[in-house]
């Protein structure tokens, strides 16, 4: 069945809004065929990931669009690029790559996208409302958008994200549809201690387990505290979208489409999975590539740290200087807010290196490290060994801070004791 197009869609295909919009619409329509969508729908905004340089294909695509007169049709924010434009001297990679990366970032701004340069667009004031259809790219943003905001996005990525932004149209497919948002897997937490539930350490590890077990399925987690914070859901979702293709996860009693388990599953049958502390320990251990001994550096803020997380980091450090480099990744708008509150100067005075616009695991912005890197992010732990060739140790934010101050890995094993 070919996709049903409106007269407006056809006009764009004919080039009435320019060559770039026509190219974008061709791709949207072809992708509608891939996902067997019957028609296209409007989106109210977009978040674009294509601004990150991976090679000349992405750059050629962006510059082809700019040359074709591209202009976004809906408000559009930008994901991280390969460069920290606020601290350009941090980049230690090939200058030719840096030049291309800069051109790619510039091309997206030229199309009218807002230069937000963050993987956490849900921290921006314009985040979408419950039930709105949007086109978001970046796997952690997608899972947050669907799960925590209850706004609707399918798994958009490079290319299709800007095509959706230029046309304001997407296929009616995937997580835009009610039936795809129902949980097919129920994850029940069993015998997890109150202490672990109250710790930041749990959430990335649980997300990692979820990604491994759920694959691309929508899951519903039973047993998370009703006051589970957005930052913890961010850590969980980012992990699940790294080790798996999770694009939505319900937390029963926490997320907006899961007031009850029945609401999350739509009353349909779902596979069951019980998660014990022993199982969590095994998945935690899978994330560390090396025994915790030496320490080269610490990296936190993947996805980008929120203002609350920056303040917590400052609180945990107190007046202690770090003994090994501690990097924190942050979006530039949260950074500006944190600077206004005096948090950033405090952190920098203690030796913390604040990275914005990009992230330490996707771009060579950390100094040479002479040992494993500790992180509180399962996403960082999952990708950095291949991207950067470093060993990683996973721990909670508290453990990361204590270790950075001590200059060696300090883990609190009692946190992971059986209840």
């Amino acid at each position, binding site marked *: 069945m070919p996709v049903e197009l409106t007269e407006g869609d056809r006009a764009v295909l004919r080039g009435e809004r320019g060559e770039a919009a026509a190219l974008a619409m061709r791709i949207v329509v072809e992708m509608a065929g*891939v996902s067997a969508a019957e028609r296209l729908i409007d989106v109210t905004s977009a978040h674009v990931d294509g601004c990150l340089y991976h090679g000349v294909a992405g750059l*050629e695509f962006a510059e082809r669009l700019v040359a074709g007169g591209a202009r976004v049709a809906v408000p559009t924010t930008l994901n991280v690029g390969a460069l920290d434009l606020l601290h350009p001297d941090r980049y230690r990679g090939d200058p030719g790559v840096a030049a291309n990366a800069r051109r790619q970032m510039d091309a997206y701004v030229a199309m009218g996208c807002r230069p937000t340069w963050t993987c956490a667009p849900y921290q921006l004031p314009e985040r979408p409302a419950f039930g709105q259809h949007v086109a978001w790219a970046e796997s952690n943003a997608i899972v947050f958008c669907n799960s925590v905001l209850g706004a609707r996005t399918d798994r958009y*990525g*490079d290319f299709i994200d800007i095509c959706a932004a230029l046309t304001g149209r997407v296929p009616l497919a995937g997580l835009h549809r009610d039936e795809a948002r129902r949980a097919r897997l129920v994850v029940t937490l069993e015998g997890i201690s109150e202490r672990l539930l109250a710790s930041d350490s749990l959430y990335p590890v649980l997300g990692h387990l979820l990604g491994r077990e759920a694959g691309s399925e929508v899951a519903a987690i039973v047993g998370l505290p009703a006051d589970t914070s957005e930052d913890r859901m961010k850590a969980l979702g980012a992990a699940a979208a790294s080790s798996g293709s999770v694009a939505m996860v319900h937390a029963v009693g926490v997320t907006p489409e899961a007031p009850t388990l029945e609401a999350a599953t739509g009353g349909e049958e779902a596979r069951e999975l019980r998660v014990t502390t022993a199982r969590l320990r095994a998945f935690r251990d899978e994330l560390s590539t090396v025994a915790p001994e030496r320490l080269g550096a610490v990296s936190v803020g993947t996805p980008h740290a929120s203002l609350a997380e920056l303040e917590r980091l400052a609180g945990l450090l107190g007046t202690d200087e770090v003994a090994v480099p501690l990097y924190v990744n942050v979006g530039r708008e949260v950074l500006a807010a944190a600077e206004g509150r005096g948090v950033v100067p405090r952190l920098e005075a203690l030796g913390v290196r604040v990275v914005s616009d990009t992230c330490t695991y996707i771009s060579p912005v950390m100094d040479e490290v002479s040992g494993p890197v500790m992180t509180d992010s399962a996403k960082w732990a999952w*990708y950095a060994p291949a991207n950067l060739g470093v060993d990683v140790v996973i721990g909670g934010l508290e453990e990361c801070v204590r270790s950075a101050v001590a200059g060696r890995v300090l883990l609190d094993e009692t946190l992971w004791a059986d209840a």
Partner: protein
Amino acid sequence: MPEARTLVAGTARGRALVLDEPLSFWGGVDPATGDIIDARHPQHGANVAGRILVMRTGRGSSSSSSVLAEAIRAGTAPAAIVLGEADPILALGAIVARELFGTTIPVIVTAESALSTDDPATVRADETGVELRGRGRGHPTARRG
């Protein structure tokens, strides 16, 4: 009869590389060489270039479209991708490569490929259906629509 359909049309021939686990192209494949660089992947160290790449599904980052398009441009991409379930991210990388470079690779979905690694295989995919043949065995052809 196994269900099969075309995500991206094209014709390809090559030796199969059957992955034991889903692979994220982003962070998992080096587009300069086609090597699988994800140290946790069971086929870590294998090379996807020119192979009929068979996997249940893609995985992980939405940036995999770019890496696939880049690999197609660089000539390090698989000859074709045979998936167990539709993966829009990989299909998109192939569609964009065709728009940009005028060349692409077929991407198909089939419930069952029956291919083993190193089997010579042929893929023919267009809007009317999919044909997947390996080691002289005929594989049933499914029609779309």
